[in-house]
């Protein structure tokens, strides 16, 4: 689709039609094409829609699915990986490519859609994969004052379709957390049918919880783009003076 055509359509259907210098510079979300994992492009399109609607970020509406070894992955610095079952270990080449992608500025959100409060096959596979990617940097729980929780909205709890895990985890590189792992099925809360209805009920909080899940999705993208910007002193001071600092 030509850029100008796309923008015209987008202006009709999407809030605040986006411009950037070239389609490729628009923000999009790429799904990692790993056998045994889920593909939920509708969830991520919804997330992009919400980002476009509430923020100044300019987004694309396509969600490509790209294998880790495909160098075109590097054209899309925001990637997601979701699933509920175990998946086969990646080849060393794929692990190296993913590690390189993250090291040079890519962002990865991993979404466990199983809704399990305990271990899941997907959880085991993810932990093994991340341990291979960054053997000296284990997954850590993101503290309540992590920038992700106030990248755009204030987030109290990182809920999704379920609310079984009160925190997110992540892999930290320097001052940023380029890999974030959630186990509340965020994509499940965002996914819609072709008719526009939500695909999955959200428990236990219903639509209020879904609304929080949408806010988490927006924050994930804003955090990926601005990293620890919200911890800059100017912001902290302004929020304290305004009585909104949490």
């Amino acid at each position, binding site marked *: 689709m030509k850029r100008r055509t796309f923008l015209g359509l987008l202006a009709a259907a999407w809030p605040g039609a986006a411009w950037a*210098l070239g389609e*490729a510079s628009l923000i999009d979300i790429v799904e990692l094409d790993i056998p045994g994992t889920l593909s939920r492009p509708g969830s991520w399109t919804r997330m992009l829609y919400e980002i476009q609607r509430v923020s100044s970020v*300019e987004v694309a509406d396509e969600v490509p699915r790209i294998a880790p070894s495909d160098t*075109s992955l590097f054209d899309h*610095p925001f990637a997601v990986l979701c699933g509920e079952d175990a998946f086969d270990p990646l080849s060393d080449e794929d692990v190296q490519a993913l590690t390189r992608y993250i*090291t040079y*500025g890519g962002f990865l959100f991993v979404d466990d859609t199983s809704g399990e409060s305990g271990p899941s096959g997907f959880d085991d596979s993810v932990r093994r994969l991340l341990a291979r990617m960054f053997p000296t940097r284990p997954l850590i729980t993101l503290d309540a004052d992590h920038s992700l929780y106030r990248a*755009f909205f204030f987030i109290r709890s990182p809920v999704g379709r379920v609310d079984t895990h009160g925190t997110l985890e992540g892999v930290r590189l320097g001052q940023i957390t380029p890999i974030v792992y959630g186990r509340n099925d965020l994509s499940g809360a965002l996914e819609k049918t072709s008719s526009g209805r939500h695909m999955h009920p959200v428990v236990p909080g219903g639509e209020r919880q879904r609304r929080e899940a949408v806010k988490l999705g927006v924050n994930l993208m*804003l955090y990926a783009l*601005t990293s620890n910007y919200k911890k800059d002193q100017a912001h902290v001071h302004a929020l304290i003076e305004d009585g909104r600092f949490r």
Partner: protein
Amino acid sequence: MSWLLGADLGPGTLEFLTPTWVIVTYCSVAFVTLTLVVYSSGRAVLEWALVGVALGLLAFAAAGPTWVEQAGRVEEGRFVVLIDDSRSMSVLEQGAPRSDAVQDALAEVELDQAEVYTFSEELQIGGEATFDGTGSDLAGALRAVSERHAGEKLAGVVVITDGIDRGGLRRLLSGGGRPSLELPGPLTLYQVGEPGEVNDLAVTDLSSGGFAFLHAPFKLTAQITGAGYEHRLVPVELSEDGLVIARSQVALDGAGRGTAEFELTSGTPGRYIYEVTVPADEDDAVPGNNTMAVAVRVVRDKLRVLQVCGAPSLDEKFLRLFLKQDPGVELVSFFILRTNEDLGTGYSDRELSLIKFPYRTLFTPHSDNGELDTFDLVIFQNFDWASFFPHEPDLLRNVEAYVRGGKAFVMMGGDRSFDRGRYEETAIESILPVELGVTGEAVDLEPFSPHLTQAGEVHPITRLLGSPADNEALWDRLPAMDGLNLSGGLAPGSATLLSHPILLAPDGSPAPVLAVREVGEGRTMALMGDSSWRWVMTEAAQGEGNQAYLRFWKNAIRWLVKDRDGQRVQVDTTQENHRVGDTIRIVSKIRDVGFQPLKDVEVTGSVTGSREAVSFEGSTDANGELVFELPAQHRGAFSVSIAAGPDGSLGTDATSFAVTDRDPELEDLQPAEGFLAQLAEATSGAHYRPGDYDDPLVDPDAGRVIDERRETPLWAAPAIPVVACLCLSVAWFLRRRRGLR
């Protein structure tokens, strides 16, 4: 008798000088010989008695007998004269050096019976007084005399001095203490110099701390002393690199001391020479101490960068990551996360972690309670000003003045930049390297690979690799950019470093992609796209890493803020300030465009001060360095300049340094008459003021005993061989008479 003993012997003692084992060996041989004689002589007692005497004499001689006579004689007592050789003795009093009075004092002493020494910080034996010592230690000199003449009673110790003692004796006496001096003779103090005869105004110290931070106030503190200027107001001038920048007056106290303080703030990093000067009147005793220079190095604490971004984007993300990871950068980012178009989305403000955009504070100078000039570099990244302060174009004029005053500005592309950001006919347009006023879309959305221009081939921003061919190949290899902000072409006085391969500016030249400009004292850069982030990710995908991106932005920031570290030719001294006598080490560093050391580069340079210029030249070593050392001989401000390569083709650089000589000896020039009087009293000596000189005190019992020792070697006396030969001859005669052989 004297002939037989070898000398006239007086009272003395006999000493044997031969080692004991030699004596024992010889006695054993003599005993065996005597036994054989006795055995062969039978009952001829007289014969073996004579042989025994002869052998005994030889044994005695072999023992090395020496007659030792000891005696002593008494010599008449001498004077020791100590002449103060310090610099304070050379100050002018009524047009003549104070030291002229030394001869008057010496005339009172019988010099043919005197040892004359000089002293300043220590005692000097021999040599003429030059009156350039850096301090006087009278107690040290007296103690050295006592040690040198230990055991001797001197007729007297004479000191010729102005009494300006730096060794502690003066302080001791003024504090009521008693000196622990054991003098070898009575002390006579001849004072030179009259109190009140000296007029001298001086800058005795100038402290700065050596360096200061950019934009932060720092103090220069000058100590002023004025002999003859007590209780007077003294004008003081401060100059920076030769230009007077401040004047003040200092009130000197009763001791003629005062302090001048100047508070300064520098807006440009570098090394500055500051000089504090007090007037030199005609009768000023030491005109050379009326000025003192100090060098101050103004450094950045951190480079403060303001990044204002109209919307979070990938280009913003990667630039922020780069700037945040640089420990030399203090980054202040403001991202517009929500615009008016995004309002009414069903979320309350309490749910949002957003703050107001403090544009007035950011774009207002410090003098008007803003922050603008606290930044070294301002980046507008896809930022549309008119959405935030359309009715306050003065804020943009502030940014223009900020740049013209010496700061840096970058505009990066996007759909809210350049013409799309409505900067046409604003103050920002007047500082941009490109012309605005493009009609229509003002953007081109086709991907393209920029071309390195002729200017770009040599400009430090776009020289990412040392070899021109490698550099061009790198730019050709870098991934395509996603689109371009169109412009009206290059602004006057600007240069295009990267250009579009197809699109043309209105004047027919290739459309600028990256352009730079020097505006007033400042610098600006325009990057007409928003996809420099691809120089990280696409390069990484190809296994190349992000060095091109990092080097591009590092080069850009160095050039924009005129960072010295970004210069390929540099000269520096290891210190900003030196003392007279120090060795000044001047280091020239030459690097290639990739900042690798350049070996065997010809460097010529010169050091220029107020008196003379010194030239130097040489070739750089393997570290790309040429080191030149020279002694700091006199105080003042000095400038160093170098040129590298044939006719300076590789570049030039300059720096400066100061040589100071805070000289306590010249801080207080009044003769210490009271001290000399106290010292004379404490040592039961005499103190003579100028004009009252008289004979020095003399110890009538002075003198010294000279020990004498005379050794007469008795083993060499003729008596021993004569008597021994006589005995042996008689014994032989008697033996032959008995018919024996």
